[in-house]
């Protein structure tokens, strides 16, 4: 097989006075090829020396991570829903018949379920279940736009709090997300907690949000495929 080898033609704009349409003139192609070659040489030199640290400026490009292994599934024996998650990134903190806790670094995502369809009550129950000795000063930050679990729409809220380690030590701010969605008399809830990230619009760190969103999206409700 012939290996691909791409070479750009780097050409000035068509609007530059005195520049004819370039595709028809060999001379210009030769000049462009020379420019391209020079650009490649310069680029190669520069690439060897540039820094590799990514810092997001005011607006950011793609957040690119590495690929990972395939998903692992948890199925709730009590309620029948299934959560697929990336076991190369998320570790299981705890699981039982009704739900599972998935952890990554300093962040956690907890799925659970309950009978009924009271979304607001389910969200409030999540927050009321938090240990206020450890998560102190919980403040409502507003709603989660487009809250959904497994493509079923629901409700959710963001909260801020200060995490105080149970065994002592330096506390730090965290962002909490509580969501609840209901279908056919079953309500599934998702609680996410992560160190607050002030560079994020929601204060929830984007890299963690991406991983958690995957599991939240990949939740399958009972009776669905």
């Amino acid at each position, binding site marked *: 097989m012939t290996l691909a080898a791409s070479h*750009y033609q780097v050409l000035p704009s*068509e609007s530059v006075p005195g520049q004819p349409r370039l595709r028809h003139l060999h001379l210009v192609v030769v000049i462009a090829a020379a420019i391209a070659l020079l650009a490649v040489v310069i680029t190669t030199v520069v690439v060897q020396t540039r820094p590799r640290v990514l810092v997001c400026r005011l607006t950011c490009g793609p957040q690119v991570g590495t690929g990972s292994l395939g998903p692992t599934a948890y199925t709730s024996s009590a309620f029948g829903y299934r959560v697929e998650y990336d076991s190369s990134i998320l570790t299981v903190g705890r699981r039982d018949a009704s739900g599972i806790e998935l952890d990554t670094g300093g962040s956690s995502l907890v799925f659970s379920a309950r009978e009924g369809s009271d979304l607001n009550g*389910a969200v409030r129950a999540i927050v009321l279940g938090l240990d206020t000795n450890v998560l102190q000063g919980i403040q409502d930050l507003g709603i989660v736009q487009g809250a959904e679990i497994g493509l079923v729409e629901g409700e959710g809220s963001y909260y801020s709090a200060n995490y105080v380690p149970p065994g002592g030590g330096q506390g730090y701010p965290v962002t909490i997300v509580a969501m609840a969605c209901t279908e056919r008399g079953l309500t599934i809830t998702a609680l996410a907690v*992560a160190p607050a990230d002030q560079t994020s619009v929601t204060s929830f760190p984007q890299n963690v949000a991406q991983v958690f969103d995957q599991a939240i999206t990949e939740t399958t409700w009972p009776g669905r495929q």
Partner: protein
Amino acid sequence: MTGPPRRAVGLLAVVALLVGCTASATGSAPAGSPAGQGARLSPLASVAERQSTDLGPVGATTPLTLTLGLTLRQPTALETLLDTRGRVTPAAWAAMYGPDPAAIAAVERILRRAGLRSRWQPGDAVMSTSGPARPVESFFRISVHRFDWRHTYSFYAPIGALVVPSSLSPTVDAVTGATNLRPDITAATSTPVGLSPAQVEALYDMTPVRDTGVDGSGLTVVFPEWAMPEEQVLDAYAQRFGLPPFDVTVRTDPPLWGQPDTPSSPASNDYVSQAAEAALDLEVVHGLAPGAHEVVYELGDPTRLATVLQSIVSNNHGSIISSSISDLNCEVDAGARASAESLNAVFAEAAAEGTSVFWASGDTGAYGCVDDGDPSTAGDVSISPDVSSPDVTAVGGTEAVPNVDGGYSQEAAWGEPLEEAGSGGGISTIFPQPAYQQTPGSKPNSQTGRGVPDVSCQADVAVSGWTVFLPPGASTGPAQEAPVGGTSAAAPCWAAITALIDESLARQSLPAVGFVNPALYLFGSDPAGLPAPAFHQVGLGSNLHYLAGGNWNAASGLGSPDVTHLTQDFEWYERRTNPG
């Protein structure tokens, strides 16, 4: 980089949620208040005042450039032309619909007397004007300041809104620019599992078309980009998927369009991000239409975007344009109307001259203001002014799920609540509903504004992103293979599909599809005689606000393509509209 310590939150000790979730819901949630709402300022002033440090006025001789949106002639006749998918030559465009040359000459004289240079060619819907800061500030009655954002990024921007000086009205109907605050790109994030070109072909039923030998040959896809990846990145992609080498031409004009990012740029990290966007665009098109020629217009100055777009349109008649650049504004921001109207005039010329334009609808769902840095509009439901033009095809995103054979299974509107990411979409508050969106069955009659997006394509990053190769530095190691999503992938997806359809039509001596919206909405209404359903209608999910469902929705538009059906439909359409 600083931040909280990376340690386990110890959630189980804190929450006991697996038990707590079954407790009865009584009492109330903790008290609190949303983030403060400030007075609505112009978006750039808000960025400056709320997030950046004002370093004071720019130097008196700092070169500034503004873009003037120009009034087109015969707007009613032009609207009729576009609604009926009529086409004109560039010369006819300049003579009939483009700005009045006599009026432009008068504008140029006024600008010259003010010490400003101008640049315009007959037919152009926009004009650029530039000069030292003080004459620019004096003529346009603005004050331009330099700002620092968190000691990592500096930019200049006008204080307050730009308005058209009365001396230029009515020939000039919009003014934008005087800032080098760069609009964001819409590329999104990585995902654990990516789709190969062959998998996307199977997913969207392209294989029968490709099996006829159609690969986009003879077609040109044009992209505006901020930076280019090195050739080795594209080579890695081509080799990985057994594709021919890329056929790419790069157009640059640093004096007019600004200096593009390079690996040696002061903020080289921007180069990595922007070159990754270009790599994604080029690779998606090459993966699906490897015979297509690709042309990149590389710019470095965000104030020149409309100028560059004008150059693309003027010099690539009948081509296919794909853009994943997003306007920094949302429609409800001050200044957005001027930006929208300037771009819309250029898009109208493209449509009239038979050029297809696909524009990514954005990656923040229905909340187009989220990433523009203006907290006063951050929670507003709004779309970007670039995609709201009725003369551009806005491409939204979906989460596509292949079946076990790789074919189409189901699709949901793209929305990721924790990331606040999703398919850009909503109802324009600037442009009214175009005639093609009033096709019965294509859209709810109750809406009065232009609906966005028109169509969609796979953009999800949680389940099934696109496998591409990105520049080193965006991840680890050289030419990193990574799955990427976002509507940045969806726009070139449709550009590539259009190249395949255009080549199929050319083989039958039928004209290229050109501005596709009137035909797409006709297909969406399932008219009598239509060979096959053109779209996979999307009935699940949301874009964080608008739910999917129905023939059209503001999360996924008409849906994603069945390319074989779509090709048959366009053949039927072209034979019907061009008998003999």
